[in-house]
Structures are given as C-alpha cells and as structure tokens.
C-alpha cells in the first residue's frame, strides 16, 4: 500500500544532510540541532508507520522507475514490513539519541556542519538499506553506508592514519560488496527478479540450480562479513575507531555493522538453499567471536576494547543466523544496539572528560568525578555480560538455547562443542568488560588534569540508553519473536524459565565478572604471574593475532607488487615498448633502403637498364 510517510522517512534525513551543511557553514550551532531534528522527525514517522502495521499489511513507495526499461523491471522502491520496522526503529531511535549526544561531543570542533551532514547522510542510506524492496535498492543503502563510514572515519583527515583507516574500511566493504553483486547477478538470472518478497518464495527458489544457490549463499555471506566485520574482513572495525566516538557508537556499534545480519535475515531462503552455507556461517562466526574476545582482553584503548567486543557480539549474532534462528539474531541486534551504543557514548564522555585521553592505563577512579557516566557504563557492562534482569541476558541466552536445537546436517556431531565455545566466549566477554570498567572507573586516577562530568546534553541520551539496556530485554523478550513471525521463519523458544532459570543463565557472566574482580581488585599481583605464564597468549592477543600483518602479506603486498610489475613490465615495455619498437624498425628499414642511393650515376643507369631488361623479358610477346 503506497504511503508517502515512508518516502519522508528517507527523504527527511537526506534533506537534513544538505541543509545542515549549507546552513551550518553560516552558523555551526544550527547544524547539530537541525540534524538531530531531522532524525527525530524520521523516527516519529517510523513510529507512526509501525503503529499502522497490523496483520500482514505492508507499506511501499516507488521513488523512481530507476532501472526499468524494455522487459526489465527494477524500480527504486522502498518497502516497510515488520522486520524493517524493527530495524528502522533501532536506526532512527538510537540515531537521534546519538545525534543529540554528538551536539555536545563535537561542540568545539570547527567543521561540525560537515560532521552532521555526513551523519544525516549515513542515517538516510541506512534507512534505504533497511527499507529496500529489491536487492539493488538494498545495495544502494549498502554502498551509501560504506561511503559515509569512509567519510566519518577519516573525518579528522589532517591525520594521515585516520584517512588511511577510512580507506581501509571502504576497500574492505567493497570486497564484501563484490559478493553482493555476484549474488544479485546469479539470483537475477535464475529467478528472473531481485524483489525480496519474490526471492523468498519456495517455488522461485526451486528454480536456482544447486551449485549456483551455494555460490549465491556464500557471496551474500561474503557481503555480510565485509559489512558486519566477520573473520576474513573484520580488521577494519578496530581501525575505524579513528573516527569521532559518536560515529563509532552509531555506525560501528548500533547500525551499520548489523546490516549484514539484516541481509541474512531478509535472504534466509537463499542462505538455506545449500545446507553447507549455514554451517560455514556458524564456524566463521564462532572463530571470529572467539578471536575478537581474546584480543579484547589485552587492549588498553577503551574504544578498541569496545570495538573488539562488537566484533565478538556480531559473531554471536551470526551464530544464531547459522542455526536458522533469525529472529533471535535480530533480538540480539536490538539489545546490542542499546548497550553497545550506551557503552561507546559513555566511553566518549570519559574521553571527553579526560581531554581526549583514550588509554585506560591513564584513567581510573572516574567513578567519583563522573558518577552518571559510571552508572550507565556499569549498567551496560552488566547487560553485555548477560546478567539476569539486563537486556543482554535474554538475547544471549536465547542464542545459546537456539544453538542447542541446531538441526543442520553438518553440525550434528559438533552441537555441544559449539554450545561450550559460545559459553566460554560469554565468560570472556564478561571478563574484559569488567576489566575495562575497573580500569576506568575504580582505583585511583592515573592521568594528569582533573576529569569532569560530561554536560547534560551528553549524559542524558547515555542514561536513556542505559535504562533501555536494563529494561529492554524484559519488555521485548516475550512479544519480539511472535512479532517477527511474519517475515521470518518461526523459532523454537521458551520463556525465561523463572528465577532459577535466569540465575542459571547468568552463571557465565557472573564467573567472568568474579574472575576480573578477583584479578584486578583483590590480588593484582596474581595478574602479573598469570601474564608471565601465559606470555605467548598475551603476545598473540595484544598483537591482534597479527591479522593485519597476515592480511597485508597475503593480499595487499601481492597486489601492490603486481601493480608495479604490471605497470613496469606489461605497460611500459609491452604496449608502449612495442609502439616505439615498431617506430624503430621502420626507421632502421628506412636507413637500409636509402643505402641504395650511392650517388653514382652509373649505378642508377645499371639499375635502370637491368629493370628495363627484366620488364622487356617479361612482357614482350616473345616466341
């Protein structure tokens, strides 16, 4: 059913982006307010559309006839159903809170208008991604988000490392998008259309030949790994912390990185075509979240810890996708958006308070000077650790449970192993989060200067998100799965299982917290011995598994070398060389032939006479 409000949801942030830049140049203060207002109005539209969504009703709106000519129909159409409603609510809701927060955070930055315009542009492209009715439209949002993350990561472009971090993010996303395009090509030719509503119908999926289906599935997963930072392509996320903290909160915690899971959920039919694809997803997810968790333990930069924790949590979500529990994964997406955004923003307030100090070793004892931020950071830490009443518990518990019911042929024998691994990672998560909490807020202040509490405009959104990460789980736990029954396949879940169940469920979190508390507060000395004993693990973890170096060696160096070789050998010597060589040859032949002119009259006469003789001999009608 056509609805202009849907168009406004996307267009308002877009217009906001342009206006906030144009007007912002005149008066920088307006930019922030304008941008936040734009996202807020978009949020209101989403809520009003969400209210109007009952039963199977959906909204759609065609912005332009885009790629439709002769018999090809690919209009630029956006589509609003329950799944995109959930995602839009998260994007615009958390987005507006973050916009509000960044008014305070970026108060002293002189290129604020450019920041807010990029932020709004990001929200607009994320909305297009989430609302896209056909895969190419989703792809528009997909690349738009990549571009905005490139612009925002490299926002302080005077520092060359930040700029190259932005480029690294964009290129890695681009490698993922390669898969997206390949998948689109396969699906278009076998199913004839790229419309998401059509693609998930079983009779359409039956038309895809099996190995093509497998390639399409893997290609889509490659796209998701690029965007949601999974194993092969996740090293860009920690470097993306070079951008301002609101950017990390919005893009690299709440919204963009979840695009991969949204795509998997949308394309669940294609993913499940070949049973091997979910298995591959499961194993990569497990490996990624394990590696990220281990690395996070030894990080000293507060934002890097959170970045690796995001990668690990995303791994968790992909675990749920791997076993086919898409609504569970989305539930974790929502709760993760709440507490991770809250964590990042409180970290931002800490950094802001400590005059842009990001290293936890020069923080500590901030509980006294920044009580509110400490409170929200604590709440969010408990949530992410998966302690009973908090949001994290419900979604993480649901994932662990759905792992137990995995019925994928490739995973029968490993069912419990994956469950155990997931629990171990959960413990790890609790451990490094508590470590970061202790290092920043407890003990004595190790930095110089005196940190101060962030202004109200920053702490207010953080507190709102803290409340959400406390209450969110409880509220959403029951209605969420049934709500998403429509667009997504059903998933077997049961209620929280009473007090005993919740205590049992939060045991891994408690273990992690206890261990961290013991090591860092009670007996710090023990920590050093362990570090000496496990020095190999410590070296690997702080060296980030040397992934950057491996990637550089395996991918970047060969290509750079190849480009030099190709440019020098193939281009210079072959194509340009042959051109010059042909020139040289013709000159040499020229010099050779002009030797004939000896300047002697007699030679010329002899030549003339000889050719006369030859011609006469040939042509005169002899005999």
């Amino acid at each position, binding site marked *: 059913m056509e609805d202009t409000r849907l168009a406004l949801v996307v267009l308002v942030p877009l217009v906001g982006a342009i206006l906030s830049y144009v007007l912002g140049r005149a008066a920088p203060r307006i930019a922030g307010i304008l941008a936040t207002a734009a996202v807020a109005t978009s949020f209101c539209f989403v809520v009003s559309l969400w209210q109007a969504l009952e039963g199977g009703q959906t909204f759609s709106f065609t912005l332009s006839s885009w790629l439709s000519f002769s018999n090809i129909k690919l209009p630029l159409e956006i589509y609003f159903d329950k799944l995109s409603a959930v995602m839009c609510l998260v994007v615009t809701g958390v987005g507006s809170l973050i916009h509000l927060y960044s008014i305070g955070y970026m108060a002293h930055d002189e290129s604020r208008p450019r920041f807010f315009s990029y932020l709004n542009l990001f929200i607009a492209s994320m909305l297009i991604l989430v609302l896209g009715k056909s895969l190419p439209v989703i792809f528009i949002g997909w690349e738009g988000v990549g571009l905005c993350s490139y612009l925002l990561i490299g926002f302080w472009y005077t520092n060359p490392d930040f700029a190259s971090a932005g480029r690294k993010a964009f290129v890695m996303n681009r490698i993922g998008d390669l898969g997206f395009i390949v998948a689109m090509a396969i699906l278009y030719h076998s199913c004839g259309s790229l419309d998401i509503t059509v693609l998930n119908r079983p009779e359409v999926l039956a038309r895809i030949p099996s190995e093509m289906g497998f390639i399409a599935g893997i290609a889509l997963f490659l796209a998701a790994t690029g965007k949601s930072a999974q194993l092969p392509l996740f090293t860009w996320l920690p470097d993306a912390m070079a951008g301002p903290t609101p950017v990390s909160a919005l893009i690299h915690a709440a919204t963009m990185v979840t695009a991969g899971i949204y795509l998997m959920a949308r394309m669940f039919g294609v993913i499940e075509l070949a049973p091997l694809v979910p298995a591959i997803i499961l194993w990569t997810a497990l490996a990624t979240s394990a590696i990220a968790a281990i690395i996070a333990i030894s990080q000293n930069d507060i934002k890097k810890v959170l970045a690796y924790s995001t990668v690990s949590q995303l791994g968790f979500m992909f675990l749920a996708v791997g076993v086919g529990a898409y609504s569970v994964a989305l539930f974790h997406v929502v709760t993760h958006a709440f507490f991770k955004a809250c964590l990042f923003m409180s970290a931002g307030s800490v950094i802001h308070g400590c005059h842009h100090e990001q290293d936890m070793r020069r923080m500590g004892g901030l509980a006294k000077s920044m009580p509110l931020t400490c409170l929200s950071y604590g709440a969010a830490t408990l949530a992410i650790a998966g302690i009973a009443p908090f949001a994290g518990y419900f979604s993480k518990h649901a994932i662990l449970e759905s792992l137990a019911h995995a019925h994928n042929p490739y995973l029968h024998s490993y069912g419990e192993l994956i469950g155990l691994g997931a629990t171990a990672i959960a413990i790890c998560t609790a451990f490094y989060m508590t470590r970061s909490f202790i290092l920043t807020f407890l003990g004595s202040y190790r930095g110089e200067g005196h940190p101060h509490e962030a202004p109200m405009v920053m702490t207010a959104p953080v507190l709102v998100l803290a409340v959400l990460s406390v209450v969110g789980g409880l509220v959403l736990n029951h209605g969420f799965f049934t709500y998403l029954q429509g667009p997504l396949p059903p998933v077997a879940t049961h209620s929280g299982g009473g007090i005993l169940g919740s205590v049992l469920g939060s045991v891994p979190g408690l273990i992690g917290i206890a261990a961290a508390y013991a090591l860092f507060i009670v007996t710090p000395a023990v920590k050093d011995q362990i570090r000496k004993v496990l020095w190999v693990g410590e070296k690997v973890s702080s060296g980030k598994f040397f992934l950057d170096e491996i990637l550089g060696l395996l991918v970047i160096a060969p290509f750079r070398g190849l480009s030099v070789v190709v440019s020098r050998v193939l281009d210079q010597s072959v194509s340009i060389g042959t051109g010059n060589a042909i020139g040289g040859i013709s000159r040499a032949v020229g010099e050779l032939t002009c030797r004939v002119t000896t300047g002697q009259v007699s030679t010329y006469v002899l030549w003339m*006479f000889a050719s006369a003789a030859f011609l006469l001999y040939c042509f005169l009608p*002899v005999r």
Partner: protein
Amino acid sequence: MSFMEFVLAAIGIASAIGVVGFRNPLSSAFSLIVHLLAIAGLYALLGAHFLAVSQVVVYAGAIMVLVLFVLMLLNLKSESGRRIGIVRSALTVGIGLVIFLSISAPMLAQFADLPQATLEQNIKSSEGGVKAIGELLYSQYMVQFELSSLVLLVGVVGAVMLAKRKNVQLMPREGGMGGVK
C-alpha cells in the same frame, strides 16, 4: 642485303663499339661522327633522303660540333684512374645481351612472315622526299611541329641559363684542368 647496306652497317657497328671502347673522349667523339654518317647512309638506302641529309646536317653537323667544342673547351684528358671492374662489365654485357634478345626476337618474328609482294610494294611508296615529308609535317603533325619549336626554345633558354657564369668562386680539385673561373 645489298653490298652497300652491308658495308654501311658494318661501319656503323664498328664505330659504335669504338665510341664505347676508346679511352680518349675525343676519339670516341670522332668515332660517333663516323657512326652517324654511316647511319645517314643507311637512311638514304632506305629511301629516307630528307632524313639522311638532316641527319648529316643536324646530328653530325650541329650536335657533334657542339660536343667537340665542349670537349675542346674542357680539354679533358683520357679517363684516369681505375679500370672498370671485369665483373661489372661482364654483368652489363650480359644484361645488354638479354635486352638485345628480348627486343629483336619479337620484332623479327613479327615481320618475318610479311609476304614478299606487299613488302616490295611498300618499299616503293615510302620514298621520303622533302615534299612528301613537308606535306605530312604541315598537315597531320601540325601540333607536334609547333610543340617541337617550343622544346627548342626551352632548350636554348635553358642552355644559356645553365652555362651563365655564376659568381660562385670554387677552388677546383686536382686532376682536372684548371677550373674556369
């Protein structure tokens, strides 16, 4: 071949070989004059009387005199220096032979079968007296005649232009006679 034709032909060929053979250009000039006169004789025998006379006047008289004049003017010695290589002369003679064969064979073949009668009759009618040639010249070949006057004019003007003394003073190289300043 009547006796007279045979003699004249022999003289012609001998003098032709003489022109090529003699080292001294002066003697080859004289041998050429003899050659021209022999050819003039042959013309007369073939009935081309006007041509025979003009040959003697124009060719032998005018052109050869001019040649001799130039020879005397430049006072050239006989060709100095190295002899023509044997290989080169053998090659040239070889080529010459090829040319001779490839020209004469078809020509002779062409006319070998001419019936004697028509031949006799043709000889009679082609008496080349001055009147006959004059009529033909001024009727059929009027255009060519006028053009040839143009050619002669160009010849004369050209000769004057080329031979005019240029004010370029050039030091002559040894060997030749002292250059005309």
